[in-house]
């Protein structure tokens, strides 16, 4: 018996051939044996795949939420920095609705009478002047945008110091009327609120001059087309000047 074991254990030609026969005989079973764990691993892989897909979806959602939070954080930081720079008492508000009508341009904010808001308070953001409050209830307020023709602001050209009235138009631009015909105005000149009228404080950025033309009806004034500083379609957070 020990002799046989020693014989088989030796690397002889016979042993090698015997081994080959055993290998060939066992190969199908080995493959079969291999196959069973493969089935198991496939199931595991499918399971893992599903789990990874779902966690991937979750992570992508979280990433999107994170991106949105970063953007919101930047906006709020900008607004906070702007708010602290202002010499007025201000109140931050979120935009919760837009005007449902085709004939007015307004937004709805989440602050109202309970927060001390009332009609004719100025609303702005870090970019510039937005409009004024025209309707207040206990928990919300309606802000008439400067792009609405019914909203008028007394304004001043920053460099030439020429006064005028800024109003909305039917389009996306603003217009500045009653500007002296003798004033030398260049395109790109900034327009600020003049502080007259008692609603909008002085020095709030409104926009820049994009076109200058003489009033065709009277010929006494210049009408300026103003590119608004604020993107009125993308308002999310605003600041109300309470005092």
């Amino acid at each position, binding site marked *: 018996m020990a002799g046989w074991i020693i014989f088989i254990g030796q690397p002889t030609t016979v042993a090698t051939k015997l081994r080959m026969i055993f290998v060939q005989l066992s190969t199908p079973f080995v493959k079969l044996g291999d196959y069973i764990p493969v089935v198991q691993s496939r199931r595991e892989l499918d399971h893992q795949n599903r789990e990874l897909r779902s966690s991937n979806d979750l992570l992508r959602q979280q990433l999107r939420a994170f991106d949105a939070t970063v953007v919101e954080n930047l906006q709020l930081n900008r607004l906070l920095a702007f708010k602290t720079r202002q010499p007025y008492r201000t109140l931050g508000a979120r935009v919760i*609705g*837009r*005007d*449902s*009508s*085709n*004939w*007015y*341009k*307004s937004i*709805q904010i989440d602050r109202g009478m309970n927060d001390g808001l009332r009609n004719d308070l100025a609303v702005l953001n870090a970019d510039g002047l937005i409009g004024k409050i*025209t*309707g207040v209830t206990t928990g919300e307020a*309606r802000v*008439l945008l400067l792009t*609405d*023709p*019914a909203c008028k602001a007394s304004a001043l050209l920053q460099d030439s110091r020429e006064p005028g009235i800024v109003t909305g138009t*039917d389009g996306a631009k603003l217009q500045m009327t009653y500007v002296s015909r003798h004033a030398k105005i260049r395109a790109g000149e900034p327009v600020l609120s003049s502080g007259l009228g008692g609603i909008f404080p002085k020095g709030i950025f409104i926009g820049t001059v994009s076109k200058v033309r003489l009033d065709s009806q009277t010929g006494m004034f210049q009408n300026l087309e103003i590119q608004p500083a604020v993107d009125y379609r993308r308002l999310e957070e605003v600041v109300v000047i309470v005092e």
Partner: protein
Amino acid sequence: MNALLVIVLMLVLAGVQAKLPALAGLRLEFLPAIVAYSALTFKRGRAVLLAFAAGCLQDALSAGPFGVTGFAYAIAALVIAGLGTVLDRNLPFIPLLAGSVASMAGAIGAFCIIGVTGVAVLKLIGVALIAGVITIPVFLVVDA
């Protein structure tokens, strides 16, 4: 039951109206469809009441003076309900026409406040046309 459905639909559509994006600068108006439906379906008194409520809802969600659109829609409902006795509401162009008339009434109410310009008149035509088109599916849905 149908009136209750119209009220619920009115509230839902009013909420949706402000959220939907504008089509070539024109906001989709659903409430004229409600006004048209009420005027061509219910008795005159109820139709006028519903139209007034729809207009007030519109005003509440807008910067317009409260009640102006309500008043305009109520008048539109009166007119449409008056014509409704001689019109066949099952013809598709009747809801289209009724929706457009209600939308135009709302616009004329707004013109009394903001004034009329050439651009505003062009806008009125576009808005009325869209409102008319929207009215047809509203009729189909509520009738179903």
